[in-house]
């Protein structure tokens, strides 16, 4: 059961708790350190996120050991995670994998995997895209065949996946592969024979990605055979709403940094924020951040409370287009406002620039986002 109608006060409490946790655990120094490790996150921090804040189980229904909150509450957490550039398996495990399990409607698979995810014991990844990076059912080439002809539920997957977020470290892999019935979702143990995961070099070191090679890897079907196309569309809708929240947080942080610098940095004997050229740049960033925040939160609200038919899909896609653009623009302008120091390695501005571009290009990039948005508006 999804608990909806969480009060404004409860959400602000959640925000304050997550923010103070991240101030302590995801400082710029911590982010830089985590991004240099092989895992790309600090397992201790992840364990604390589970124990102290119960974040991995936030949207997992109570029957599977979670707290059953909705997208609005998850959005609050992701805004804060985006602000802090948190390196963690939260996005891969909760926003992608847990949502895929829930969207599959497979009670048995949910009962098997979600309690571990909710408790923070299991990290998971969702492997969809292949070499092109597209989230398009037509482009799925990875094949699934039955392991035995006796009708038992064992399958074997063969093929390769790319751009799999946290794919090298995840204990559980959820993989879209093609059967004779069409694209379908499978669960694969990350350590199973026939699975090779190789970390990819990434533009944004705070979000790990991997290439997976599957060579007759043993797998279990999740949900209905051939239902993968519809499932991908549903997961993508909720994932882009989650991503939008993260982007809002990142953009907001860029805006705050720019405003702070414009207030304090002096040139020609006055604060640079007194010059309209700089002041208006900051105001433009504010406008975009406010709009991004509004459309991202509105999409999350509709996900929880419902709306007119098609309203969620259209608003989610609008949030994806708008927030991708707003974060990228805020990250670029933040470097501009900071003058020469903004593009140095030591300054954190480039970390946001990398995250913004990489996020904008996730799930197919702007042209795919545009088409998806227009399609959802019936155009």
């Amino acid at each position: 059961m999804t608990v909806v109608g969480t009060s404004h006060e409860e959400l602000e409490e959640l925000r304050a708790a997550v923010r103070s946790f991240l101030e302590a655990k995801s400082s710029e120094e911590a982010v830089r350190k985590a991004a240099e490790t092989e895992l790309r996150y600090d397992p201790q921090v992840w364990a604390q996120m589970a124990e102290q804040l119960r974040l991995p189980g936030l949207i997992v229904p109570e029957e599977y050991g979670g707290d059953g909150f909705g997208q609005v509450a998850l959005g609050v957490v992701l805004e804060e995670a985006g602000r802090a550039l948190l390196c963690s398996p939260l996005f891969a495990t909760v926003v992608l994998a847990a949502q895929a399990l829930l969207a599959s409607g497979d009670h048995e698979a949910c009962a098997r995997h979600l309690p571990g995810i909710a408790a923070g014991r299991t990290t998971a990844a969702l492997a969809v895209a292949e070499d092109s990076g597209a989230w398009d059912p037509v482009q799925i080439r990875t094949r699934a065949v039955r392991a035995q002809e006796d009708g038992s539920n064992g399958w074997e997957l063969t093929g390769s996946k790319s751009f799999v977020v946290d794919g090298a470290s995840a204990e559980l892999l959820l993989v879209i592969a093609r059967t004779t019935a069409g694209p379908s979702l499978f669960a694969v143990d990350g350590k199973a024979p026939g699975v090779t995961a190789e970390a990819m070099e990434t533009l944004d070191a705070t979000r790990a990605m991997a290439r997976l090679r599957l060579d007759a890897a043993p797998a279990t079907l999740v949900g209905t055979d051939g239902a993968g196309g519809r499932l991908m569309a549903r997961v993508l809708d909720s994932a882009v709403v989650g991503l939008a929240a993260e982007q809002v947080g990142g953009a907001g942080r860029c805006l705050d940094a720019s405003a702070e610098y414009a207030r304090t940095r002096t040139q020609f004997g006055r604060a640079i924020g007194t010059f309209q050229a700089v002041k208006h740049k900051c105001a433009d960033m504010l406008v975009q951040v406010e709009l991004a925040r509004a459309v991202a939160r509105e999409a999350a609200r509709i996900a929880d409370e419902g709306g007119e038919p098609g309203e969620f899909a259209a608003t989610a896609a609008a949030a994806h287009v708008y927030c991708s653009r707003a974060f990228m623009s805020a990250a670029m302008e933040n470097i501009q406002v900071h003058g020469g120091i903004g593009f140095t390695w030591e300054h954190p501005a480039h970390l946001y620039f990398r995250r913004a571009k990489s996020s904008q290009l996730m799930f197919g990039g702007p042209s795919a986002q545009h088409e998806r948005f227009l399609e959802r508006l019936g155009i």
Partner: protein
Amino acid sequence: MAHDTDVPDPAAFAAEVRAFLDAHARPAADRAGFVWGEGDDRVAYFSSDPPEVEQAATQAARDWQRTRYENGFGWITGPKEYGGRGLTPVHDMVYDAVEAEYDVPDTGVLAVVGLGMIGPTILAHARQHIKDHWLPAMYRGDAIACQLFSEPDAGSDLASVQTRAVRDGDTWVLNGQKVWTSVAHHSRIGVALTRTNPDAPKHKGITAFLVDMTTPGVEVRPLRQMTGGADFNEVFLTDVRVPDDHRLGEVDGGWTVALTTLMNERATVGNEGAGPVAAALSPERLAALLRATWTLDDHAVRARLADLLADIKATEALNARAMRSLRAGHSPGPEMSVSKLMYGQNLTRAAHFVTDVLGPSAVADTGQWGTYAWSELLLATPALRILGGTEEIMKNILAERVLGLPKEPGIDTKSPFRELRGVRTKEGSA
């Protein structure tokens, strides 16, 4: 008027509104039933109607406002002693939402400036007898009101007004020139900002008056815009005598009065999201246009359309959230200024997008329905980025009040106005 003294809950109020509208208006044509090529294809922000058509529309607006007033819907949030209903902004929104489903005259000529900005200003700053007389007259549709603020040398720098008001016993004598005055040619009253003390700093020597527009010496000259229409006016004030009891607020305290109006102005302009122009920006209407002009498959056109619609959707989300937050009793944040900015920008981008797609059909009228019609909106867009506070002023407000950035140095709020004028003249001749 005998109305229930209790505050009805929104659902009960909506039912009451519906009963009123069923009795006095017809349901609007179904917007979802939009068919390309049928009906009125105009997409205009400003009117370009001939004067007799405009007069008739103004009369229809007055009549509808009177009907509303007589049925208790003329001033939903206003105090009962002045003919209001004493309800909340939520009830106002409920009324607007229900009325949008009906085909009623556009009351913008009364509402945008008069009821939206001047009414609250009079309520906050006028003497008792002015309120008793003019507030009911305004909300009953009898007295259209205008804002005599801007001058040729006081646009964005509104505190630089030079129209003089000199005391003569119990009256004041006003001399000067106002400009950009919307609906002055229909107005019975106006609120004027005047300079009463040139020796005080510029914000401190201003006084506001309620001016009866029929007073001798008030001359209204329409200003023709690039759209061909005349929505604004110049107003010349020559030895206009205004009684002291028509003063709003304190002598030399007019800046406070102006701020009341300006705050309401930003809320009003940003809220004009509904209406025929907004309908023109609907995804289905834009898609129909592109289909009719064989451009919907063009990749570059689709990318631009998606970007434009994302801006529009995000603005809608912002407005929806602002309303919901208002309804929950929170005061509005920076949303209003953002919304005002986006209103002008979205229409500007849309008009350029559509006319770029149309190409030659936007340059000259081919007779094809719904194409050249967009040129009317295009020609209004430069004004949209300026009226009600320029984009630059709105950005200064956002940067200074929301982000806390420092003000520009050299803005002199301490020297006597007389000396500032001297400085400006020297700079101007350099």
